[in-house]
């Protein structure tokens, strides 16, 4: 039974709400620093080439230009990527849009004009755009150090030894147990773009030769600082996060723009702003990883998956920011979904091609794997004529089940059992009436066929990594939380304020939070993997509790009373049995010059995977192949709800950030001849408009999970992860034949129907 709280679970306006609706909120492109210059990159028109000559003299001569830099002018030891492979600028360019030269000028227009005055001659090399072609012996090699274009496995930030090959049990025995076996190749490899409205941007300023301040559109300033400090040896980096215009996990580490800004700022001695425009954003920023699986799955007669074998190929284009780490999480999430399966042999490869870089986006590897893996599992379910909801109920992780997580360690699930969530959501959707069997429509009205589909996803990263916070109480009845919480739209700052106000029983407006500035806040890994609710929440709750304990003890000493009989509310300490006896905080502190600080720390823990189930009903026009979504029901168990509206909007977010609509129309369209992305502005890149949103119902259970004082679990990151596979299933059911290609455009559907 849920506790009745003063703030927790209640819809309360965010503290920054008025700023956001009046235009006062400051985003990176709204910020100017005195004497700031504007940086711009000249970008490669070729997908693979060597720069044979470069002449910057005309650009340098342009009035207003303060610096022009090429690969000859950049530090050789600043290298980004995993493992480090991407120089600030290189003599070799590896994708259309890769950096060729950098300009700093007094305004953006001059900077742009100057890039056009740089004369470059290229020695054009043969490109490769497909991951399996890139593995062939005679394929063009992108990097000398990566033989056959295979990125070195492993992500040292996540695990000491690379976690690239999931091996458990006895795979042959697993297939012997199976009654229904299917195998084949399934791909999710159209590189859709998460496309937050605000392009990535930074302002970079050297405070001394070794001290660098970066204002960034980042939701994870400490993570960005930590990664950049490894990549810029000897530099102390301070990252200041601002209001960020959407991230979806994709604008946490603003790496290359910081490199660009830092070299230009060093060359000119002035601060430099780097803002990508929308075309640069679509062309050069990180898209979803390409994902392809050659897999084989076996299901027992009772619907339990008994064996999964395969090779998972992952393509992060020409540069991996974190792909190997995402693959580790993907392998973990596969086990969370198929937790009863004891026999695994799932190997991976991470492959470079001459495409835009692929990187972290909500769903973080798991979504890319699941989108390719679920159609395969669906075929085996079809063979056994199973209801997919029943298979998910039988296989999804429950307390006592274990999995190898991204750190390569074995973790055992506790607390979280989602069978009831699946049942409640299925009921709300009307699954038992609408599900007619595999490749069977729910209804056909003339030329319109309706089908239903379902998918599930869960992620144990909700408890990942470290968070620290301190909470300072002052004589004015104010609590100031020192914690690095960015604001990208997830309202985690608001959630932390609610939790601290609840612990200290203060009015919401008496709880303040520091800006997300790495110089003045303790470490926090950032808002990734739905971790904020548990990790940031725990650190802030513990800090507030610690401060409260010290305050009460101080008051108890003054009152010669045991601390247990005292409580505090609205900045006043009182005897529980007799609230008229007590004192304001200022009296307990003894002076307005004194404060009390409490500390809170959270440590990494992967024992409580979160969960969503995604039901979708679609309608296909059998003559045109046009498909549309009619209705969505998404179910989750969020534990205690912290904020109902923000939670619901996280579920709605499944329609954004290259999630559900990657099954219908979202893709980056590549011109195979030029290697250029043709959908590089938001007229050509397809997105769902306001008048195309279907009814969306949510089912949110509130189990009181033993996670922290408020029994909550985060779910935002995963809300769209099962959506695309669910849509494909619904389309197959609507039209009566297997639709296995993302996105299922009218052409794909008509082809499957034998009409094109």
């Amino acid at each position, binding site marked *: 039974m849920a506790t009745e709280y003063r703030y927790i679970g209640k819809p309360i306006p965010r503290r920054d709400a008025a700023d956001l*609706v009046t235009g006062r909120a400051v985003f990176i*492109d709204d910020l100017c620093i005195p004497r700031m210059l504007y940086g711009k990159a000249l970008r490669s028109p070729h997908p693979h080439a060597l720069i044979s000559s470069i002449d910057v003299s005309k650009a340098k001569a342009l009035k207003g230009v303060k610096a022009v830099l090429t690969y000859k002018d950049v530090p050789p030891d600043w290298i980004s990527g995993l493992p480090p492979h991407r120089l600030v600028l290189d003599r070799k360019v590896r994708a259309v849009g890769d950096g060729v030269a950098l300009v700093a000028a007094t305004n953006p227009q001059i900077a742009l004009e100057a890039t056009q005055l740089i004369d470059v001659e290229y020695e054009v090399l043969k490109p490769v755009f497909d991951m399996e072609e890139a593995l062939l012996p005679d394929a063009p090699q992108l990097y000398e150090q990566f033989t056959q274009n295979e990125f070195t496995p492993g992500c040292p930030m996540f695990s000491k030894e690379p976690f690239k090959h999931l091996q458990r049990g006895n795979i042959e025995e697993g297939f012997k147990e199976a009654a229904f076996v299917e195998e084949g190749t399934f791909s999710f490899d159209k590189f859709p773009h998460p496309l937050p*409205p605000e392009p990535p941007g930074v302002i970079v300023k050297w405070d001394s030769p070794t001290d660098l301040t970066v204002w960034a559109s980042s939701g994870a300033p400490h993570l960005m600082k930590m990664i950049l400090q490894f990549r810029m040896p000897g530099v102390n980096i301070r990252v200041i996060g601002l*209001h960020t215009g*959407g991230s979806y996990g994709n604008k946490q580490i603003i790496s290359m723009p910081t490199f660009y800004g830092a070299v230009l700022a060093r060359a000119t001695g002035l601060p430099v702003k780097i803002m990508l425009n929308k075309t640069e954003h679509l062309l050069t920023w990180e898209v979803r990883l390409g994902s392809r699986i050659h897999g084989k799955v076996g299901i027992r007669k009772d619907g339990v998956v008994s064996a999964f074998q395969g090779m998972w190929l992952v393509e992060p284009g020409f540069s991996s920011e974190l792909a190997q780490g995402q693959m580790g999480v993907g392998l973990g999430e596969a086990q969370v979904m198929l937790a009863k399966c004891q026999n695994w042999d799932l190997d991976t490869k991470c492959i470079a091609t001459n495409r835009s870089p692929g990187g972290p986006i909500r769903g973080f590897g798991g979504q890319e794997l699941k989108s390719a893996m679920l159609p395969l599992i669906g075929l085996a379910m079809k063979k056994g004529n199973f209801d997919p909801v029943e298979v998910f109920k039988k296989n999804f992780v429950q307390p006592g089940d274990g999995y190898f997580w991204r750190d390569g360690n074995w973790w055992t699930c506790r607390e979280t059992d989602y069978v009831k969530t699946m049942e409640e959501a299925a009921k709300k959707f009307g699954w038992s009436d609408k599900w007619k069997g595999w490749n069977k429509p729910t209804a056909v009205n003339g030329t319109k066929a309706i089908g239903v589909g379902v998918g599930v996803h869960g992620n144990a990263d909700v408890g990942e990594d470290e968070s620290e916070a301190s909470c300072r109480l002052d004589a004015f009845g104010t609590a100031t939380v020192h914690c690095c919480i960015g604001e990208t739209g997830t309202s985690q700052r608001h959630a932390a304020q609610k939790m601290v106000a609840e612990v200290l029983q203060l009015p919401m407006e008496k709880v303040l939070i520091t800006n997300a500035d790495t110089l003045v806040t303790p470490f926090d890994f950032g808002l990734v993997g739905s971790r904020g609710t548990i990790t940031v929440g725990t650190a802030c709750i513990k800090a507030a509790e610690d401060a409260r304990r010290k305050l009460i003890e101080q008051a108890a000493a003054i009152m010669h009373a045991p601390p247990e009989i005292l409580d505090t509310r609205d900045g006043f300490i009182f005897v529980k049995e007799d609230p008229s006896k007590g004192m304001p905080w200022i009296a307990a502190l003894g002076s307005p010059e004194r404060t009390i600080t409490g500390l809170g720390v959270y440590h990494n823990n992967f024992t409580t995977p979160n969960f969503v189930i995604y039901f979708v009903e679609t309608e296909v026009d059998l003559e045109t192949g046009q498909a549309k979504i009619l209705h969505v029901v998404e179910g989750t168990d969020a534990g205690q709800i912290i904020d109902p509206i923000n939670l619901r909007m996280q579920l709605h977010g499944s329609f954004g950030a290259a999630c559900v609509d990657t099954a219908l129309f979202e893709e980056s369209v590549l011109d195979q001849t030029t290697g250029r992305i043709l959908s590089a502005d938001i007229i050509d890149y397809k*997105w769902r408009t*306001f008048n195309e949103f279907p009814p969306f119902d949510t089912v949110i259970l509130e189990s009181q999970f033993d996670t922290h004082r408020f029994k909550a679990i985060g779910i935002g990151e995963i809300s769209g992860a099962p959506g695309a596979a669910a849509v494909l299933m619904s389309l197959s059911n609507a039209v009566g034949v297997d639709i296995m290609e993302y996105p299922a455009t009218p052409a794909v559907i008509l082809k499957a129907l034998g009409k094109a």
Partner: protein
Amino acid sequence: MKENTICLSVNGNNYDLSIGTNPGEVAPSETLAQTLRETLLLTGTKVSCDRGACGCCTVLMDGEAVPSCTLLTVECEGKSIRTIEGLQNPETRELDPLQQAFIDNTAFQCGYCTPGIIMSSKALLEKNSAPTEAEIKEALSGNYCRCISHYQVFKSVKDAADNRR
């Protein structure tokens, strides 16, 4: 119109801006969005796609919702512009009921597209005080939002319209 000057009203204030390429002047190639953001420092108007496709830069021009990134400032002679900063009551500083409805419903997440969405909604409600759901959706179909706050936005616009009656 004075020679080499552009006169326009923004949020009730009249501006005579010199046309030219020197600092502080409006270049003939400058968009209205640039003038609002960089010359008048009204940074509530956001630029996202810079192609007139996403609606983040929407302002009202003589009451019509327009994408300020595709208009040249020099073409706005004599126009009356209203931006997100001009929605509050100038005397009382009270929020426009539409802004208040967005707050009450938390009709935003990152908030980057919010000013444009509010301005498109404002243009709709100025002309149509009781829009249907379909009319609200149609009026906002040129506004991009990727966090997906759409369902809360519909409710806010509906609430604001209902409260006017």
